[in-house]
């Protein structure tokens, strides 16, 4: 008699792709210690698909074999998983609010620490550096830019962006209330814009894993925009806890424009400074 699915033990998996993905993530955490199991599954599935295309592999099982044996493949995997579409002064209204409402408060502190959590290729880091510079805060501010991927961090720390995007970045900068000559912040070669050194001076790039690492300082402003959208519910809660405990009292937290604390237990621990801009302030 043929086995009917209903008679099968309940832990039998009929979705082979799902099973392959779970096995891959299990293999990665056991081999390399990076835990992606609590990432949001639909996004992870799409990103793994992209990794397969880049690695020119057909199956997730094939990818698993490669990643188990190759640290380089693991690094590439992390970079692809961690990369995010971004732009300097992305969401100009948000950066205008930073400039007008947050920076004046930061200025009252003797020293200002900013954390860009999940900085990927660094667009927001340098946007922030420009804001601090224009507020005259460069000398007494430090930006901590962290990411899971050392490959992305290396790219971010070089401060090199495609020249062809500078028009868009300039538009964003102006829309965010910038008044200087944006092109004075970078030099160019044939294809690139390279952020000038003074803006990179007070930025510290370092590897940090939001999944497993702890708090490493207390910040006056934390930017964690469009990072948690890739995390599952339990992991999001853990990271909110981490961000909360990494902020000074009345410190500022910025999430992506389509993220908010509604439906989370953290809603009562923060005041929404501007809910439209997902800009929050930690309660005492």
């Amino acid at each position, binding site marked *: 008699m043929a086995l009917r699915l209903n008679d099968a033990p309940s832990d039998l998996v009929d*979705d082979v792709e*799902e099973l392959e993905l779970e096995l891959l993530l299990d293999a990665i955490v056991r081999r390399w210690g990076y835990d992606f199991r609590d990432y*949001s*599954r*639909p*996004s992870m599935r*799409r*990103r793994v698909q*992209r990794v397969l295309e880049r690695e020119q592999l057909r199956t997730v099982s094939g990818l698993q074999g490669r990643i188990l044996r190759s640290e380089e493949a693991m690094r590439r995997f992390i970079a692809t998983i961690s990369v*995010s*579409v*971004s732009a300097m002064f992305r969401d100009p209204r948000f950066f205008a609010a930073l400039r007008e409402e947050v920076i004046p408060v930061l200025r009252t502190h003797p020293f200002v620490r900013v954390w860009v959590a999940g900085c990927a290729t660094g667009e927001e880091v340098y946007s922030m550096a420009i804001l601090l510079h224009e507020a005259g805060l460069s000398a007494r501010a430090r930006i901590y830019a962290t990411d899971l991927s050392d490959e992305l961090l290396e790219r971010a720390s070089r401060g090199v962006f495609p020249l062809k995007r500078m028009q868009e970045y300039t538009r964003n900068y102006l829309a965010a209330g910038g008044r200087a000559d944006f092109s004075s912040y970078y030099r160019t070669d044939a294809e690139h814009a390279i952020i000038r050194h003074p803006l990179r001076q007070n930025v510290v790039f370092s590897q940090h894993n939001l999944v497993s690492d702890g708090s490493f300082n207390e910040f006056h402003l934390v930017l964690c925009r*469009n990072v*948690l*959208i*890739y995390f*599952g*519910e339990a992991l*999001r809660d853990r990271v909110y806890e981490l961000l909360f405990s990494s902020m000074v009292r009345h410190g500022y937290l910025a999430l*992506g424009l*389509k*993220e*908010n604390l*509604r*439906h989370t237990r953290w809603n009562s621990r923060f005041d929404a400074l501007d809910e439209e801009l997902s800009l929050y302030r930690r309660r005492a």
Partner: protein
Amino acid sequence: MSAARLLVAGASLGGLDAVPELLGPLSVDLDLAVVVCQHRHADSGAPLARLIGERAGRSVLEAFDATPLGRGAILLAPANYHTLVEGEHVRLSLDATERFARPSIDALFGSAARAWGGRVAAALLTSSSDDGARGLAEVQRRGGATYVQDPALAEAREAPEAALARVTPTAVGSPAELGAAIAAWAGALPAGRTHG
């Protein structure tokens, strides 16, 4: 509480008329959540949700990350984010465009099919690309109901035609006819008796 069933709908060119017509017959009493993916300009904002809502006579909200798929909710994919379904929530992603689209109808449909299986209905309406056809096939493969706007009645027939080449839909018709069929699928009876 999460809805019992989920409708995912996709459109581009012509969607501002077709989507409200689809939503019109869906009574607020249905135990149904709706997610709409309307291709739109990257800079367009919340007014589109208001416009569709006004035309449909329902409250339509732009989705945030982790918005629950609650009973009666009608959520619109925000501009420039992929909108996916994970369990009983909408999830967003800024990953690269899929077949030149973000939000991608295929990505929405595919994730909904995976998460909701036979409890999902997908409707592909007027649209000038084939985005959505693959997702619709995935919905069908996983036991969901599929609805396609009649290409002859669509402002842009590319998506409906691409869909009909891939699936044998549960129903083909005008958006209003599909809405009525989906209402029947979702169970037309109100949950309580207070509405008669």
